Protein backbone atom coordinates (compact mmCIF):
# COMPACT_ATOMS: atom_id res chain seq x y z
CA UNK A 1 0.00 0.00 0.00
CA UNK A 2 1.38 3.42 -0.96
CA UNK A 3 1.59 6.25 1.54
CA UNK A 4 -1.16 8.09 -0.32
CA UNK A 5 -3.48 5.08 -0.11
CA UNK A 6 -2.79 4.80 3.61
CA UNK A 7 -3.46 8.52 3.98
CA UNK A 8 -6.84 8.21 2.26
CA UNK A 9 -7.79 5.33 4.54
CA UNK A 10 -6.60 7.24 7.58
CA UNK A 11 -9.01 10.04 6.65
CA UNK A 12 -11.94 7.67 7.02
CA UNK A 13 -10.64 6.58 10.44
CA UNK A 14 -10.32 10.18 11.63
CA UNK A 15 -13.57 11.45 10.07
CA UNK A 16 -15.97 10.49 12.93
CA UNK A 17 -13.88 12.47 15.42
CA UNK A 18 -13.56 15.84 13.71
CA UNK A 19 -16.16 18.37 12.64
CA UNK A 20 -13.63 20.20 10.51
CA UNK A 21 -14.33 18.32 7.23
CA UNK A 22 -12.66 20.97 5.09
CA UNK A 23 -9.41 20.63 7.01
CA UNK A 24 -9.73 16.83 6.92
CA UNK A 25 -9.82 16.84 3.11
CA UNK A 26 -6.60 18.82 2.90
CA UNK A 27 -4.57 17.07 5.61
CA UNK A 28 -0.87 16.43 5.09
CA UNK A 29 2.03 15.07 7.14
CA UNK A 30 2.22 18.27 9.18
CA UNK A 31 -1.46 18.34 10.21
CA UNK A 32 -1.67 18.17 14.02
CA UNK A 33 -4.60 16.07 15.20
CA UNK A 34 -5.30 18.07 18.35
CA UNK A 35 -4.39 21.60 17.24
CA UNK A 36 -5.54 21.55 13.59
CA UNK A 37 -8.35 19.00 13.56
CA UNK A 38 -9.59 19.96 17.07
CA UNK A 39 -9.73 16.35 18.23
CA UNK A 40 -9.64 15.99 22.01
CA UNK A 41 -6.77 13.94 23.40
CA UNK A 42 -9.11 11.22 24.69
CA UNK A 43 -10.45 10.70 21.16
CA UNK A 44 -6.90 10.04 19.94
CA UNK A 45 -7.23 6.77 21.86
CA UNK A 46 -10.38 5.93 19.86
CA UNK A 47 -8.59 6.74 16.60
CA UNK A 48 -5.73 4.41 17.57
CA UNK A 49 -8.18 1.62 18.49
CA UNK A 50 -10.11 2.11 15.23
CA UNK A 51 -6.85 2.09 13.24
CA UNK A 52 -5.85 -1.18 14.93
CA UNK A 53 -9.12 -2.77 13.86
CA UNK A 54 -8.95 -1.40 10.31
CA UNK A 55 -5.37 -2.48 9.63
CA UNK A 56 -5.38 -5.54 11.91
CA UNK A 57 -2.30 -4.30 13.71
CA UNK A 58 -1.42 -3.74 17.36
CA UNK A 59 -0.19 -0.35 18.46
CA UNK A 60 1.84 -0.34 21.67
CA UNK A 61 2.14 2.48 24.18
CA UNK A 62 5.40 3.89 22.82
CA UNK A 63 4.11 3.99 19.24
CA UNK A 64 0.84 5.57 20.34
CA UNK A 65 2.81 8.29 22.08
CA UNK A 66 4.34 9.32 18.75
CA UNK A 67 1.02 9.66 16.92
CA UNK A 68 0.49 13.40 17.24
CA UNK A 69 0.35 14.48 13.61
CA UNK A 70 -0.77 12.82 10.38
CA UNK A 71 2.81 12.05 9.28
CA UNK A 72 3.69 10.24 12.51
CA UNK A 73 0.39 8.29 12.34
CA UNK A 74 1.26 7.13 8.81
CA UNK A 75 4.80 6.19 9.93
CA UNK A 76 3.51 4.06 12.81
CA UNK A 77 0.80 2.36 10.71
CA UNK A 78 3.28 1.63 7.89
CA UNK A 79 5.83 0.27 10.37
CA UNK A 80 3.26 -2.03 11.99
CA UNK A 81 1.94 -3.21 8.61
CA UNK A 82 5.48 -4.11 7.52
CA UNK A 83 5.95 -6.16 10.70
CA UNK A 84 2.94 -8.34 9.93
Amino acid at each position, binding site marked *: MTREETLNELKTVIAPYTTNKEMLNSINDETDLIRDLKI*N*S*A*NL*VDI*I*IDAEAKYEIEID*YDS*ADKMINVGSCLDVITEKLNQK
Partner: protein
Amino acid sequence: MHNEILNHLPYKSSFRFVDNISALDEDGVTGEYTLREGAFFYEDHFVGNPVTPGVIITEIMAQIGLVVLGIFLILKDGELNISEDAAMYPLLASTEVSFHKMVLPGQKVTVISKKQYFRFGKLKCYVEMVDSSGDIVAKGMFSGIVKRVDIKNG
Protein backbone atom coordinates in the same frame (compact mmCIF):
# COMPACT_ATOMS: atom_id res chain seq x y z
CA MET B 1 -15.21 -4.64 51.30
CA HIS B 2 -14.29 -2.45 48.33
CA ASN B 3 -14.80 0.79 50.18
CA GLU B 4 -11.10 1.42 50.88
CA ILE B 5 -10.95 2.70 47.31
CA LEU B 6 -13.17 5.60 48.41
CA ASN B 7 -10.14 7.00 50.27
CA HIS B 8 -8.57 7.73 46.89
CA LEU B 9 -11.50 9.78 45.63
CA PRO B 10 -10.48 13.44 45.44
CA TYR B 11 -14.02 14.73 46.11
CA LYS B 12 -15.12 15.89 49.52
CA SER B 13 -18.39 16.71 51.30
CA SER B 14 -20.94 18.31 49.00
CA PHE B 15 -19.44 16.97 45.77
CA ARG B 16 -18.77 13.39 46.70
CA PHE B 17 -21.47 11.19 45.24
CA VAL B 18 -20.44 7.68 46.26
CA ASP B 19 -21.68 6.02 49.48
CA ASN B 20 -20.85 2.39 48.90
CA ILE B 21 -19.22 0.07 46.37
CA SER B 22 -21.09 -3.24 46.29
CA ALA B 23 -19.26 -4.94 43.41
CA LEU B 24 -15.93 -4.18 41.75
CA ASP B 25 -13.71 -6.09 39.38
CA GLU B 26 -11.68 -5.48 36.21
CA ASP B 27 -14.79 -5.50 34.03
CA GLY B 28 -17.07 -3.22 35.97
CA VAL B 29 -18.41 -1.67 39.14
CA THR B 30 -21.70 -1.33 41.01
CA GLY B 31 -22.18 1.37 43.64
CA GLU B 32 -24.86 3.29 45.51
CA TYR B 33 -25.58 6.84 46.52
CA THR B 34 -28.45 8.36 48.50
CA LEU B 35 -29.35 11.90 47.55
CA ARG B 36 -29.13 14.14 50.63
CA GLU B 37 -32.32 16.03 51.43
CA GLY B 38 -30.29 19.16 52.20
CA ALA B 39 -28.01 19.06 49.13
CA PHE B 40 -27.05 22.55 47.90
CA PHE B 41 -28.67 22.21 44.47
CA TYR B 42 -32.20 21.49 45.72
CA GLU B 43 -32.68 24.98 47.09
CA ASP B 44 -32.65 26.51 43.60
CA HIS B 45 -33.44 23.53 41.34
CA PHE B 46 -36.31 24.13 41.52
CA VAL B 47 -37.62 26.64 44.04
CA GLY B 48 -40.29 24.86 46.09
CA ASN B 49 -40.03 21.80 43.84
CA PRO B 50 -36.68 20.06 44.39
CA VAL B 51 -35.58 17.68 41.60
CA THR B 52 -32.06 16.27 41.15
CA PRO B 53 -30.39 18.12 38.22
CA GLY B 54 -29.31 16.07 35.19
CA VAL B 55 -25.73 17.25 35.65
CA ILE B 56 -25.72 15.81 39.18
CA ILE B 57 -27.14 12.50 37.88
CA THR B 58 -24.37 12.53 35.28
CA GLU B 59 -21.76 13.31 37.97
CA ILE B 60 -22.96 10.43 40.18
CA MET B 61 -22.69 8.07 37.19
CA ALA B 62 -19.21 9.35 36.35
CA GLN B 63 -17.89 9.17 39.93
CA ILE B 64 -19.05 5.59 40.49
CA GLY B 65 -18.89 4.27 36.93
CA LEU B 66 -15.64 5.82 35.76
CA VAL B 67 -13.61 7.24 38.64
CA VAL B 68 -13.96 4.35 41.10
CA LEU B 69 -13.29 1.78 38.37
CA GLY B 70 -10.47 3.88 36.88
CA ILE B 71 -8.66 4.20 40.20
CA PHE B 72 -9.16 0.46 40.85
CA LEU B 73 -7.63 -0.42 37.45
CA ILE B 74 -4.67 1.90 38.01
CA LEU B 75 -3.99 0.58 41.54
CA LYS B 76 -4.26 -2.98 40.26
CA ASP B 77 -1.61 -2.40 37.61
CA GLY B 78 1.50 -3.00 39.73
CA GLU B 79 3.80 -1.79 36.96
CA LEU B 80 2.56 1.74 37.42
CA ASN B 81 3.97 1.78 40.95
CA ILE B 82 1.51 4.13 42.59
CA SER B 83 2.43 5.18 46.11
CA GLU B 84 -0.27 5.07 48.78
CA ASP B 85 -0.59 8.82 49.00
CA ALA B 86 -0.64 9.57 45.29
CA ALA B 87 -3.60 11.78 44.47
CA MET B 88 -5.81 10.83 41.53
CA TYR B 89 -7.39 13.54 39.44
CA PRO B 90 -10.10 12.30 37.11
CA LEU B 91 -10.80 14.17 33.89
CA LEU B 92 -14.11 13.56 32.19
CA ALA B 93 -13.58 13.13 28.44
CA SER B 94 -17.08 12.57 27.07
CA THR B 95 -20.61 11.59 28.05
CA GLU B 96 -23.68 10.66 26.09
CA VAL B 97 -26.57 10.19 28.51
CA SER B 98 -30.31 9.76 28.20
CA PHE B 99 -32.59 10.44 31.17
CA HIS B 100 -35.69 8.36 31.84
CA LYS B 101 -36.99 9.08 35.34
CA MET B 102 -36.76 11.86 37.95
CA VAL B 103 -34.77 11.44 41.17
CA LEU B 104 -36.12 13.26 44.23
CA PRO B 105 -34.37 14.27 47.48
CA GLY B 106 -33.71 11.30 49.79
CA GLN B 107 -33.87 8.67 47.04
CA LYS B 108 -31.22 5.98 46.76
CA VAL B 109 -29.78 5.21 43.34
CA THR B 110 -27.60 2.36 42.10
CA VAL B 111 -25.03 2.81 39.34
CA ILE B 112 -23.91 -0.18 37.25
CA SER B 113 -20.93 0.32 34.96
CA LYS B 114 -19.54 -2.09 32.38
CA LYS B 115 -16.05 -1.51 30.96
CA GLN B 116 -15.79 -1.16 27.19
CA TYR B 117 -12.04 -0.65 27.22
CA PHE B 118 -9.18 0.75 29.29
CA ARG B 119 -6.24 1.67 27.08
CA PHE B 120 -3.56 4.37 27.05
CA GLY B 121 -5.04 5.69 30.27
CA LYS B 122 -8.53 6.18 28.85
CA LEU B 123 -11.45 4.32 30.41
CA LYS B 124 -14.69 3.97 28.47
CA CYS B 125 -17.78 2.46 30.11
CA TYR B 126 -21.44 1.84 29.49
CA VAL B 127 -23.18 3.13 32.62
CA GLU B 128 -26.73 2.69 33.89
CA MET B 129 -28.46 4.23 36.91
CA VAL B 130 -31.49 2.55 38.46
CA ASP B 131 -33.69 3.64 41.38
CA SER B 132 -34.75 1.49 44.35
CA SER B 133 -37.59 -0.07 42.35
CA GLY B 134 -35.09 -1.12 39.68
CA ASP B 135 -36.36 1.34 37.08
CA ILE B 136 -33.83 2.92 34.72
CA VAL B 137 -33.16 6.53 35.68
CA ALA B 138 -30.42 7.24 33.14
CA LYS B 139 -28.03 5.38 30.86
CA GLY B 140 -25.20 6.18 28.52
CA MET B 141 -21.59 5.97 27.42
CA PHE B 142 -18.93 7.65 29.54
CA SER B 143 -15.23 8.09 29.07
CA GLY B 144 -12.47 9.72 31.04
CA ILE B 145 -8.83 9.83 31.97
CA VAL B 146 -7.36 9.56 35.47
CA LYS B 147 -4.33 11.72 36.00
CA ARG B 148 -2.01 10.70 38.82
CA VAL B 149 -0.14 13.18 40.93
CA ASP B 150 2.41 11.78 43.34
CA ILE B 151 2.47 14.13 46.31
CA LYS B 152 5.87 12.86 47.49
CA ASN B 153 7.58 13.66 44.21
CA GLY B 154 5.60 16.80 43.58
